[in-house]
């Protein structure tokens, strides 16, 4: 049974018979199986294979590789005839800038990117909005009036999660305390692949009295779920990016309140579809709450009692009456 992430079947791109778009997929470190945005991107491609008769090829970055290796990955895909090419992660921005010029008749997409060119689409997400909503959920559900946050590293990647979350909690009740822990100084392994650090941080947060902890720390989050699964009922964790309830163990599921969703899969599929239809647009393709590109998960049904309240906030975000901050 295939549930580890959206697409962990080893043969994602094995079938080369499709007549649709030939998608070249360049992953960030971790690649498929990272239970995060790489997997989500793969899920989008999977859907494209199924629905657009697409074929694909994939390749992932390795740790501490030079920038030229990323360029090389893109070029190799381009030379091999793949079109469109999806680069997963903002780290590909500069490289796509360069390579897209060399292949003007191919289309490129960069997840989270900020590249510029007539054949480049940046798929970007208003993660602060999704985080705002899980912040609201936390604010509504906390009994201790005390919640926590674990971030991988300070900086523009994670700050929007933290800022949105904090604002969401405060929107419900400004007196609720929000404790924040950061795992690392840099977006390195210690930030996003450090479950033991997240364990320590989570234990500290719960010990200090928080009853809900939201993480935005990639693979490190496993440490949070480990800790929360040993806690009594009513102590919660909140996942990030995908609906992490779906990939959790049964003991953990009992404690996963919700997840802040970032629908990379949808964006990638949309892009592939647009390519097939010849409607790709250069510039930024923003996935925000209006488009349902970000949001919160309801699996487990733990939010059933407050869904309506959360959706009020959501409506305000959609209408623009409320703004989720992206800076701390």
């Amino acid at each position, binding site marked *: 049974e295939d549930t580890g*992430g959206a697409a962990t079947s080893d043969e994602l791109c094995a079938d080369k018979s499709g007549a649709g778009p030939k998608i070249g997929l360049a992953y960030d470190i971790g690649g498929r199986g990272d239970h995060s945005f790489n997997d989500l991107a793969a899920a989008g491609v999977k859907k494209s294979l199924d629905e657009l008769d697409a074929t694909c090829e994939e390749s992932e970055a390795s740790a501490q590789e030079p920038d030229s290796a990323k360029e090389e990955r893109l070029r190799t895909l381009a030379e091999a005839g793949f079109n469109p090419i999806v680069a997963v992660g903002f780290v590909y921005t500069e490289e796509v800038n360069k390579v897209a010029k060399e292949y003007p008749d191919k289309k490129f997409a960069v997840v989270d990117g900020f590249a510029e060119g007539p054949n480049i689409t940046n798929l970007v997400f208003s993660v602060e909005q999704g985080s705002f909503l899980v912040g609201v959920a936390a604010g509504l559900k906390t009994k201790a009036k005390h919640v926590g946050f674990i971030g991988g590293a300070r900086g523009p990647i994670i700050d929007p999660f933290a800022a949105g979350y904090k604002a969401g909690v405060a929107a419900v009740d400004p007196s609720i305390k929000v404790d924040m822990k*950061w795992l690392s100084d840099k977006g390195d392994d210690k930030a996003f692949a450090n479950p*033991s650090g997240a364990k320590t941080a989570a234990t500290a947060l719960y010990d200090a009295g928080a009853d809900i902890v939201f993480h935005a720390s990639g693979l490190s989050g496993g*440490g949070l779920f480990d800790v929360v699964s040993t806690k009594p009922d009513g102590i919660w964790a909140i996942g990030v990016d995908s609906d992490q309830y779906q990939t959790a163990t049964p003991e953990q599921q009992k404690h996963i309140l919700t997840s802040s969703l970032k629908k990379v899969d949808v964006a990638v599929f949309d892009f592939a579809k647009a390519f097939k239809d010849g409607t790709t647009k250069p510039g930024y393709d923003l996935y925000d709450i209006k488009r349902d590109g970000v949001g919160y998960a309801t699996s487990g049904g733990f939010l059933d009692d407050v869904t309506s309240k959360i959706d009020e906030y959501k409506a305000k975000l959609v209408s623009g009456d409320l703004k989720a901050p992206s800076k701390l």
Partner: protein
Amino acid sequence: MTMAPEELRPAGAPSAALVPRRRISIWVWLLVGLVLISAVRVLTGANEVDSAGTMRETVNASVPIALAALAGLWSERAGVVNIGLEGMMILGTIGAGYFGYWYGPWAGIVGAMVFGMIGAALHALATVYFGVDHIVSGVAINIIALGAAAFLADTWFSGLRGGGPTQSPPLDAPLSITLPGISDAMITLQDKHWFIISDLASLVAAVTTELSSMTVLAVILIVGSALLLWRTGFGLRLRSCGESPVAAESLGVNVYRYKVIAVLTSGAIAGAGGAFIALVSSGIYQNGQTGGRGYIGLAAMIFGNWRPGGLVMGSVLFGYTDALQLRAGGEAVHALLILVAIILLGVAILQFRRGLKIAATTSLVIGVGFAVWFFTTDTVPADFTRMTPYVTTLLVLGLAAQRLRMPAADGLRYRRGQAG
């Protein structure tokens, strides 16, 4: 490859050999430390400084480092410098990941030790039989291990439910032990925040709450190694290979064999350290999860003067500061500032009495600096707390390193038939 400190001793400083051997028991040190920390806690009100939670995290952070250090001890006591510890730990994590996933946590530990030993076998082959520079071999092993673990993870874990090319599925941790009665009582006592008593209580609470059986195993390994190395003929032979292999050879000791045994044991223990990281700390295998703990372990061993008691202190020092910054953050680290200031003042007095005027002045100035920092601020910015373990290690080594003495033949090439 590192230079013998002999030629570098600051002018006028006595050689380690001449400093009278006055060994203060580890218990005395621990007691002094406890009193100091307790005093600081009461003074500053930063209770997280030694709460049971912090202590438990300290234990968890210290064990893998202590195992790495112990691994280093085995190897270096037999005269083989082992900078490949990091690699052997990495092999340990992947071994623990594979065997732990398929056959359970204990198989994971055994698998980790076997994998660590594979790396060690390579090191032994290169250094003992081929006389390769120990550092070169160690560095090579680190590279190989890093690549091998990444390659194997991709091969083994891709497509497994919950796994991926860079990580294993979640792993079961080996049994952990909680003594509920004691643990709860101690927590109550801790929360009274009494001088010394509450501190001791949190210490007891820490080791009676969710104590991993691997921690127990680590303690057994450390005590067992100390007894084996210092109380048995086997240990004497092994250590003699690090002190004077030619003397050992001239008395019929098969030096190669002991060196190989020592390095293999070193690999197994380092592998166990990797197992702890994968099975206990993380509950999962991930590429790069050792995070340089092999090197830190090496530092802890040097810090501990190549002795079991000392390396435990080094590991705990590092583990404590690391746990403290992550768990308790800026305020607790801020409380440490005054602790450091007090210690430095103490050191300055000792140095002054020994006639080391320049050193005493330096300590004094730095100590006053810390005190000023403490009194003029309320917290240490998070960015700096993360440096705590590293800065502390540097600071402490700066104060203590001159009294260190490594095994006399550590890192030296030895060929059979050199005796005479």
